[in-house]
């Protein structure tokens, strides 16, 4: 379960005041809201990338508010994919596994499995330069899921890709939702995306989160 309790964030003039939400274990939560309302800041705070003024972030009943991003074990896909420009796609998928000291054969197996699921096996030796938006997002998704996190945060992963690619990526995410292996919070401002994927929906409005069902 992902639980945020009365979380407040401040950065310069921007302020998010006492936000709360709950995504039950294995469910796919979608958070919507206007541009600039603080959706990305909220995800960053949950991932441990932004300091919080007050409140709590709880994952599976464990308070992680004071933990480092590495200790939280959250998969995170930012809006711009933020791929590592000097690494091949293979190394992206193997990155978190290598950090955990997993045996080389097991890493190869996991990378092959992910690449097959994401349909990027033919890209494994490529570097990010020249990848399409959809391909980059698939790599970013694979990188975030590579170490089998229990929680996944997606920051508008489909916002900058064309309709056809978006359709196939939505199918991938829908498969992830059905598997219920990971609890997801997906930020978007696309209602169709939310309709297709959401088990639980939230709207961030005037600094407050409203559950929509």
């Amino acid at each position, binding site marked *: 379960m992902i639980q945020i309790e009365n979380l407040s964030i401040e950065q310069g003039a921007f302020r998010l005041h006492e936000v709360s939400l709950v995504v039950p274990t294995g469910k796919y939560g979608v958070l919507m809201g206007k541009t600039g309302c603080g959706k990305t800041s909220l995800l*960053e705070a949950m*991932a441990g*990338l932004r300091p919080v003024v007050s409140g709590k972030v709880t994952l599976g009943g464990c308070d992680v508010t004071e933990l480092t991003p*590495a200790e939280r074990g959250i998969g995170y896909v930012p809006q711009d994919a*933020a791929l590592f420009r000097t690494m091949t796609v293979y190394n992206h998928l193997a990155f*978190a596994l290598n*950090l*955990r000291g997993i045996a080389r054969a097991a890493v190869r197996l996991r990378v092959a499995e992910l690449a097959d699921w994401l349909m990027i096996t033919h890209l494994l030796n490529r570097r990010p330069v020249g990848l399409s938006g959809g391909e980059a997002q698939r790599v970013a998704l694979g990188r975030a899921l590579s*170490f089998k996190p229990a929680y996944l945060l997606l920051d508008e992963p489909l916002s900058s890709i064309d309709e056809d690619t978006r359709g196939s990526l939505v199918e991938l995410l829908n498969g992830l939702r059905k598997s219920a292996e990971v609890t997801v919070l997906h930020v978007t401002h696309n209602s169709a995306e939310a309709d297709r994927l959401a088990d639980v929906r939230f709207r961030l409005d005037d600094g407050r989160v409203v559950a929509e069902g």
Partner: protein
Amino acid sequence: MTARGANARFYVALGLLGGLYVVLIAAMIFADLFFTTPDDLWSRLNSPEIRYAIKLSLVSCLVTAVLSLWVAVPLGYLFSRTRFWGRPIVETIVDIPIVLPPLVIGLSLLILFQTAPGRRIEETTASRAGFLLTYLVTPTLIAIASVPLLRQFVPRGHGLLYAPAVALASALVLRFSGLGAEIEAPLQARFGTRITFQIPSVIIAQFAVSCAFAVRTMRVTFDQISPRAEQVALTLGCTRSQAFWTIALPEAWRGLVSAGTIAWARALGEFGPILIFAGATRMRTEVLSTTVFLELSVGQLEGAIAVSLLMMIVAVVVLVLMRTLGVRGGPA
């Protein structure tokens, strides 16, 4: 008039205005070239004094470039990624050598080494260089070299923490095996020297100016690399230090080459601080820029021209190298 014709006239006007400067530089180079002959140029460059100056310039510029990068990478990263109290003041201090007249930097260095701490440093380098190189520099180099190996055997993210222990162990082994005593004496004989008006002062004078340019280049480089990739690396399990070494630094490699090249080139052209702080003693602290001055001061215009041409060739090679790598102070 057609739009194409109007565009052409505009670009030609711009070209004429800017072209005057290009013509001036080209004319200067050709004037130097036609002042001498290839045979004369070769014989001048083959003189022992100029060969010594070439050798010292190459070595001192290389050391300066390495030292500049050593400082510029951490400082550039700090300026780019962090907001700390007093940062504007620190940035201003680092930029001072860029705007100060070079002679003032040389004079300030000279004054610094006349103070009590400065004199103490000079005494230490003169009498204890062998000791420092044996028991401080050598263990540090061993520790740095062992970091990749340490990373294979120690817990994740702790490789760097074990490096000081390796350095200490190396120093103790050197001390009690007797090996340290054997290498200390020759190192002292070779490197034991005062600083002012000696070779170290050439490097310090070059470093004092060049490093500021390298810091500025590295800061721009890191500014142009989005911190987002490093943040993602943190969520994947990296420590801040691992994110820097595995993500930020490899992405900054073009900026790194650029900063090193700029530092090297600035060091090569440095004259004022070297003249004041190191002097211009033949076959001792003479580098190429001081050779031009020394040759002119004894009326050897041909020698000065020969060295000038050599420095121009080096400048062209550096510029071509930078353009080939696509470096303009930016990241990959």
